[in-house]
């Protein structure tokens, strides 16, 4: 059991919710007067590639909070094989199926 009191727990949950609302909707609702330079606006095109990679890398290389760079870390070969598949065919479901099969097989074998 958590040691936070019910009130503290509700406050913690509400603070997470407020951070979601403010970060996602804040600029969309109140940012009309914010004008970014053309250069910054262009730079934001690269946000998807960078954000996704920054989300993926710790998940793959630090499965338990510790760097696992060897091929014995099943997530690494599974991600590489899924990425190679994606270069050949652009299918999200295909990548998930192939990646999970490789991941499962290596975990089973080890």
């Amino acid at each position, binding site marked *: 059991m958590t040691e936070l009191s019910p009130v503290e727990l509700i406050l913690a*949950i509400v603070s997470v*919710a407020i*951070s979601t609302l403010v970060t*996602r909707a804040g600029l969309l609702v109140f940012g009309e007067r914010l004008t970014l330079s053309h250069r910054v606006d262009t730079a934001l095109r690269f*946000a*998807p590639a*960078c954000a996704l990679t*920054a989300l993926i890398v710790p998940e793959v290389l630090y499965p338990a909070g510790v760097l696992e760079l060897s091929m014995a870390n099943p997530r690494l070969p599974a991600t590489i094989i899924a990425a190679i598949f994606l270069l050949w065919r652009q299918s*999200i479901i295909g*990548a998930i199926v192939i990646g999970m099969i490789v991941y499962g097989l290596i975990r089973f074998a080890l």
Partner: protein
Amino acid sequence: MSSPWKDPAWRAEFRRGFLDMMPAFPGILAWGLVTGVAMVKSGMPVPYALLMTALAYAGSAQLASLPLIAAAAPVGVIGLTALVTNLRFVIYAAAIRTWLWTYSARRRALIGYLTGDFSFVLFMARIGREGAFPHRDAWLLGTTVANWVAWQGSSVLGIVAAAFIPTEWGLQFAGTLALVALVVPLCRQRAGAAGALAAGVVAMIGHAWPFKSGLLAGVVVGIVVATFVDETTTTPVAEPGA
């Protein structure tokens, strides 16, 4: 939301957005399930886990806050960690905002609250292909509602069935693979690949930084590197809104 719904073209775009999100469903469902299980297994009572799912609606921030909640960290630290984990959404909002000014503030607020990683990436890809396509609010909302339904449904299932779902299954990796599927095509251009590489390296270096700040640092450095590579490898062309 009642008036645009009467427009068949608006409804058609909404439906299209919903369907365009479906390929990501296995990843979203697995991730939502795992987040639901993780909340309960961290010691959070079921009603609070349901409340967090319903309100917070941000998997990475929820997962980041769980160990802090379990350790009874100060509420301010929990809120700050969630805020920093979510700061990439400010960059997303900055990127999509110019395409949404024509819509009411209320609709922009709803779109903003619901737009997570998947919807953002799909929206930027379609804008990149088609520019300011008509009823883009409907399409974007369609993708977000699909994401919301899949996420909330699987999270609630994970919370309720937590006792029967072992965390050793490694299901959350399916969510990671869905993100990989979105990022690989973005790395076909040199600038995108360079930005992703830089973001990945910084995310590695900063994986244990306080308040999950390595994630935001990775995004910012990645964008700067991608822009630098883009500007040095391509001749600047005027592209109004394209």
